[in-house]
């Protein structure tokens, strides 16, 4: 996992330093390499279930505009999904690079250039999306720390973790602290047969039966929606591209990660 990230990050860094900024007063305007000239590169993971290693060679170019679109989609998905979704650290890192780059440009620009206000406005918008996205993830991590870590420990090694490296560290630390706190404040004072936290039973789990609104990005056939009652009316439905639906989260859970379904 780490190898992948360092490759991605180093490739982006080298490209960005070549670009001359449009705002710095020293450089010639014409030298500015327009962002959309395919200078951005990072690996896209088209299907979360696929073997992770196979995607290493599959590098797609993505424009910054699409990057922001991806961030917005991830934000919406994360907002409405009851469980923690796969991390999109690649997107996050790229966005952070873009923000840093733009902030440098602003700093080095001639003071009073009226573009500064506009770039700042856009930066504020992007930062809002980014911070909101990260905060939602942290909130879910804190809420379901114990179940997320357990799930992570149980997963087979070829499936990607939902947590990024930093998030994993954060979650473990957080869980450790919570357990220590509960032990020190309550459990220690209880009789010894009651001192087990019994997390298997007590830990909060995300409610996958929540109802969500979604939009289909592709034609999807054959989704099984089960009623979960004993005399259940199970349905198998086909969804066309661009439709909006409301339904339970559980049946379409796998499609969210793959990007075929967008929560709205």
């Amino acid at each position, binding site marked *: 996992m780490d190898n992948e990230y360092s490759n991605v990050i180093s490739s982006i860094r080298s490209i960005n330093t070549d670009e001359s900024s449009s705002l710095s007063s020293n450089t010639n305007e014409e030298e500015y390499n327009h962002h959309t000239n395919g200078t951005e590169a990072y690996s896209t993971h088209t299907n979360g279930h696929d073997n992770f290693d196979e995607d290493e060679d599959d590098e797609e170019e993505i424009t910054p505009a699409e990057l922001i679109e991806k961030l917005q989609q991830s934000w919406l998905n994360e907002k409405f999904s009851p469980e923690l979704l796969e991390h999109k650290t690649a997107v996050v890192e790229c966005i952070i690079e873009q923000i840093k780059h733009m902030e440098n440009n602003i700093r080095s620009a001639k*003071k*009073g250039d*009226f573009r500064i*206000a506009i770039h700042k406005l856009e930066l504020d918008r992007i930062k809002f999306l980014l911070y909101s996205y990260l905060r939602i993830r942290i909130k879910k991590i804190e809420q379901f720390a114990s179940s997320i870590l357990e799930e992570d420990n149980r997963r087979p090694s070829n499936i990607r973790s939902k947590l990024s490296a930093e998030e994993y560290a954060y979650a473990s630390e957080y869980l450790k602290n919570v357990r220590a706190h509960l032990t020190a404040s309550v459990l220690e004072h209880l009789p010894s047969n009651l001192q087990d936290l019994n997390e298997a039973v007590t830990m909060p789990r995300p409610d996958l039966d929540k109802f969500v609104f979604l939009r289909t990005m592709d034609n999807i056939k054959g989704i099984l929606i089960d009623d979960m009652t004993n005399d259940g009316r199970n349905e198998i439905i086909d969804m066309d591209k661009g439709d909006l639906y409301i339904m339970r989260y559980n049946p379409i859970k796998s499609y969210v990660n793959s990007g075929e379904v967008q929560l709205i």
Partner: protein
Amino acid sequence: MVFIKDAKKEFLDQIINKRVLVFVHLDVDALCSWKILQHLLHCEHILYSVIPINSKQALEDAYNQHKQVANNIILINCGATLDLVEILQPPEETIFYLIDSLRPLEVRNVYNGIQIKIIVLQNELGIEQKLVPEYEDIFDEEEENDEENEEEEDGDENLDEEEPERNRSKRKRFDPEYLEKMHAKREWESKRSKILFEYYKYTYHRCSSSLVLFDLAWKSAKDNNDLLWWSIIGLTEQLINCKIDRDIYTRYVVELNSHVLRHNHRPAVNALGTSNTNPAPDDVSINCLKISHLDDLNMVLLRHWSILESIYHSIDLACLFKMWTNKGKKKLNEFLADLGLPLNECKQKFAYMDSSFKNDFKMLVASENIKEKYRYDENFIYLSTFIASFGYTNKLTAFDMAYAVEALMENVDGEKNLSDKFIEALNCLNRENLKALECGIETAKNHLKKIYQQIQNFIDMNQIVASGPFLQVFLEEGSNENPFFSQIFTSKKLARFALQSYLALTKGKKVRNMPLIVCIPLNESNTLIAGVPPYRATNNTENCFGLAFDEAAEKTKSRVNFSYFDTSIIEINNEDKSKFLDALVAVMQ
């Protein structure tokens, strides 16, 4: 000279990217100018700090406190008549931009090209330049250098005991060339003091600052209806406080009308601002500001009061009917009867009057026989102004707004400091804030009532007396309203109303051309004295009291404080009051 020729290039473009410090005087015109300037600063992303000030001391203190904030300082309606460089001692990089309607400008400000820039209306630039005395007539650098040499030589003479030196200097004394030079110099000096005396003799006002700034906004293509409305209010205030007279006011109204038509081309509303029965379909949202020109009746706050109260408190009409006497009150009733208005309608609030009476009122007031019987003419009863409507509230004339804002600024109820009053008055100008507007109008009504009451007292007790070349009236000590009357504009208003009402009730010929001063006790030790020029139908805007007060104070060595920018208002120690007034009589003979 430091008059800016192209305000956009030499002012706005210079402060883009820089931080500015703005000092705003507490008067309606300055507030309106500030709103316009604020819009311009916002459009160009210029960081600013704004400080309201009331007096010279406040300017000095605020400047010393905040001078490290910015190197570009804008002063609105304050400071142009003071020697800024001398008083504030600014560092060399500081540049002052002055926008002021008060004249005469301090000559040292005008000829300081490095640190001071004065912004005036573009097409009045020539006139402004002519008003200031020529450089050569006032400053003589060559002479100053010679004087220095002269002094040096005198000094040498004392120390030096050598004969030839002494002889040489003695010889110089009687040198005819030298004598001629001295003679010329004395002549020049006497001419100079005469010129300066003439220049500083009268204080007067020229174009309002809000109009100057609106002109700048227009030339930078940043003008809109709101800015236009504010500049109209600024101009209106100048008329209310007799800073300019009717002719000049009408001239500016015509100029503003062209802007109004440009921004508001729409079918006009009819007289009195009531809408047509079949309004043409209006393309623009009801929430947009719409301004139109209106020949309104010269009755203060008419739409917010009953006709009777409005006439009572309008100074011109009150004097016409001699409202303070019983006979006058009867005459007013007769007038209303002649117009065909039943008395109970007149006591109703104007907005609730029967609409047929409302519509006929304006026509009837201008009918020939009424005008002949009560002896007034068109110009007296009609006033050219603008009316604005926005949203579904009642329409407002520029006069209503000017009165409301001024009332909020001069309000002494409640413990409000300068900044609070400044912010309240600005809220009132912001048309979204209807509550502040209503509050302002109510306050304005209260103020007018108080002034009326005070004038009634003056007349009943014959307190206005002629002492020498001017009239004077004293307010009693310890009265509750003294703090209210000692506000700058209220004191002048009181003085003007007192003068006009006295003239209406007296027949003496000598008093026709007398100015008036009013003395208001401030606290145990100080009194405020405010002076207004003689009442003339036209051109009553030049005030000579500044210089007169100065001379009288010097002669008697009284402890006098010229605390305000308007030099016709001073604070004087009670002990010096009587000798000061005697000296004033002597000065003004």
